[in-house]
């Protein structure tokens, strides 16, 4: 859907609300209108269908370099005035933020028409349910006796941002996501398989394929125990997506750079991965979940993070760009709390694909492990980029360049920097995986060494 200036007659007058601020005070306003249907299923039936229509308004005020935000659900002119008053009162007591550069005037060209699916945005609850039924049916038919669980979510988010400098932009994205788990909890140890995907167009989710893939990935024989240690690994897309999320938070988020704890703080401009590795954050890409503006109304654009193995800069919003003295990249999150320790973070990661099939990744690995996905990944040591998590839902032993059989799950504790530095091959197929409102788009990878620190019982 093209980004456009807001013109709906029923829309509140944001310009008037901003003009109503006292002299010497400026501000910006966001209105986020969301509509989504989420169909969860478990034990072979739909158990938690959820439909949501919401409006979220956020009014940020800057008063002599003092910033504060008020939020609410009332997007009428009266509601906006009330939020403006609340934010002003809060800004008056805020400590000074000298590096805030002020709100930007509406310069620069927009990205034009971005991928958007009206059918996805307006999908009926019955149609969303049918997608879930298709995933379920496919998984059940390909894994008799398997217990199936998962989710299908479709919807849209429309974002309008205006500020005191005359900026007033609106953009929208359509989002569809599905994931499916097939498990045999009756076996000892229990086994499971997984698949997932996201797209801006629900008709391209491929529900039957996802169900089939999860069923295929569920081990058909008893997993063997593998001792902890460092192994070469093939990581399937969902596992790669987790690695990239943490790499982006620890290495490319603005706060880590401002405060010196980024794991890439001293490595920008240096080689951190082989030349085949190129990681970009591109909110305009059709291969992601596109969005034309960020939460400050800045046009989004592709931001190189790793170019042919060389680490580049961090992503920024107005405040972090001011603090770092670096260009604005259009990665603002909503200015209100809670938005975590990281500050602006990449939202639409894309890892360039290679030319290897999964069989070729496995063959090249020789002896090691094939991992479908991770679970409960957390940061252990931000400065060195060390994270930990479990493997889950389809872990296999690779021997003699072939998948030899299923393995019991393992805990890894590894530096994301070492993992990407060791990449030897990239898969030729990549897929988008849901990540907040955006996505991580990644192929499978083979990496030289991955450290597993303990094993579990299944």
């Amino acid at each position: 859907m093209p980004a456009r200036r807001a013109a709906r007659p029923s829309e509140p007058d944001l310009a008037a609300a901003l003009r109503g601020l006292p002299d010497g005070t400026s501000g910006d306003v966001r209105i986020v209108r969301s509509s989504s249907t989420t169909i969860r299923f478990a034990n072979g039936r739909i158990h938690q269908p959820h439909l949501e229509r919401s409006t979220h308004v956020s009014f940020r005020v800057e008063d002599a370099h003092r910033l504060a935000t008020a939020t609410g659900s009332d997007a009428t002119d009266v509601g906006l005035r009330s939020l403006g008053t609340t934010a002003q009162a809060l800004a008056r007591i805020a400590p000074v933020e000298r590096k805030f550069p002020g709100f930007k005037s509406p310069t620069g060209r927009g990205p034009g028409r971005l991928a958007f699916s009206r059918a996805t945005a307006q999908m009926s609850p019955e149609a969303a349910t049918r997608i879930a039924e298709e995933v379920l049916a496919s998984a059940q038919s390909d894994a008799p006796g398997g217990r199936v669980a998962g989710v299908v979510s479709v919807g849209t988010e429309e974002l309008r941002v205006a500020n005191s400098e005359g900026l007033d932009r609106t953009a929208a994205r359509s989002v569809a996501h599905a994931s499916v788990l097939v498990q045999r909890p009756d076996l000892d140890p229990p086994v499971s398989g997984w698949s997932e995907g996201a797209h801006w167009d629900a008709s391209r989710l491929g529900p039957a394929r996802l169900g089939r893939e999860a069923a295929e990935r569920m081990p058909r024989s008893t997993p063997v125990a593998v001792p902890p240690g460092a192994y070469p690994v093939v990581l399937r897309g969902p596992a790669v997506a987790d690695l990239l999320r943490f790499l982006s938070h620890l290495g490319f988020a603005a706060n880590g750079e401002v405060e010196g704890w980024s794991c890439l703080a001293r490595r920008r401009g240096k080689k951190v991965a082989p030349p085949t590795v190129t990681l970009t954050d591109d909110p305009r890409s059709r291969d992601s979940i596109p969005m034309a503006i960020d939460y400050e109304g800045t046009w989004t654009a592709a931001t190189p993070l790793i170019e042919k193995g060389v680490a580049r800069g961090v992503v920024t919003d107005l405040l972090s760009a001011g603090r770092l003295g670096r260009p604005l990249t259009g990665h603002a999150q909503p200015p209100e709390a809670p938005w975590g320790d990281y500050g602006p973070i990449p939202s639409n990661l894309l890892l360039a694909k290679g030319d290897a099939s999964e069989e070729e990744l496995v063959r090249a690995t020789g002896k090691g492990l094939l991992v479908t996905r991770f679970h409960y990944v957390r940061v252990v040591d931000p400065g060195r980029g060390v994270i930990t998590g479990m493997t889950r839902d389809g872990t296999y032993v690779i021997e003699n360049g072939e998948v030899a059989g299923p393995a019991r799950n393992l805990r890894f504790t590894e530096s994301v920097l070492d993992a990407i530095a060791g990449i030897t091959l990239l898969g030729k197929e990549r897929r988008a995986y849901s990540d907040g409102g955006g996505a991580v788009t990644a192929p499978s990878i083979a990496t030289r060494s991955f450290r597993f620190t303990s094993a579990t019982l299944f």
Partner: protein
Amino acid sequence: MEDLIRTALAVVDAPGVLHSDVRVVAPERFVSLAVRNGAASALTDSRAQALGVRVRTDRAWGFATTSDLRPTSVREVARLAIRLARAAGRNARERLRVTDDPAPTGGRYETPLRQDPFSTPFDSIVELLASAEKGLHVAREVRSGIASFQAWEENKWYGSSDGASYTSRIVHVGAGLTVTAVRGSNVQRRCSPASHGGDFSQAGFEFVKGLDLDARAPEIGREAVALLDAPACPTGPTTLVLGSGQLGLQVHESVGHAVELDRIYGSEAGFAGTSWVSPEKIGNLRYGSDVMNVVADATEPGGLGTFGWDDEGVPAQRTPIVHRGVLVGTLSSRESAAQLGLRHSGGTARASGGDRAPLVRMTNVNLEPGDRSLDELLEGVNEGVYLDSNRSWSIDDRRLNFQFGTEFGRRIVRGELGELLRNPIYSGMTPAFWGSMDAVGDRSTRHLWGLPNCGKGQPIQGARVSHGAPVARFRNVAVRGG
């Protein structure tokens, strides 16, 4: 609000709908004040509102929500909830069953407050935070200081098709400090009074004043800097004494989530995971040692999981979970309790707001105190480590294999706390770990910790829960320096 509930209930009084309930949360207020490195960090005053309609047919649930509280919008989402339930039940083979629980009529629950945080001048709070944050910067290695305050106010109206109704006003409040010292890639963090934003309670501003952030700040600033030069935690199996804060999180991850009955029955399999507990083992599963006693207590004053009734209208309860090391109870909703064949729900179906359907959630899941003082716990350790204040946390999808990192450790030698240790990590398997607990601290070592960020469900819901935890001692635990 009662009119809106009646409006919604009238719409869902439709063929095939066996039961419905409506919750309005308005306003749901959230104030977040933080000072980060001397500047304001995302000062926020939020007032949200939402109405949620849940219906049940004989085959399926349907839930729809809106933030628009005009009657036309309310009627629309009520109709959508029915459509969802009918679509979801189209191919369902089995009938839904729920427990029959006593329903409140006109009940009221309100947080007792000495000083309402929303009436406390915000400038005085910002002043307090700014002063405390300044105190964190004790050396040039301190690269980041954060002092934060948060308060939530949830005003709720509940009504159901069987005539149940109640209202509530629940206030949660808390504050904390975080300091990060950096030297090269050596990054050390200390938080106080706890990690994950501090400590939180169902209380008024008096709770925040009692935290005495000003006094804590220089101490943890110095500790963060000292950790840069501290030796790494030694590696190997050893005796571990866990501080109350870390033990609270251990209870959360390896007991609380594992005993959620919806997880046990696979409802969360596709996202958060399942449990190593199976239904037939409830009542006889050896969960830990004889000194392990856990309760889920939604009635404990000050707990973030304390309320009058849950989001299905079931009264708050105190439920034994582990008694002398044996699993005797679970956390349950009306549906999951019926699956287990219980007559009544455990009353722990909670929603994070009017815009979410209730799920089985923790309330205040507490490890009961034992009979040892801290000194007595340490006296029994010839060589070991004392760890506290969470830094990283991870556990598998069945809640068995866990690994926790803490911000600091201290060596224990012949019953005495010794040198500071950096990057400690301990790991284990849930039943073996709890089985290795040989002594539990007494009430003097116990604290009720508020944890404001427990995630579960799709769409994601953040629950605020509490954990009462003493200090405890564990033998032969795998510990290492990260």
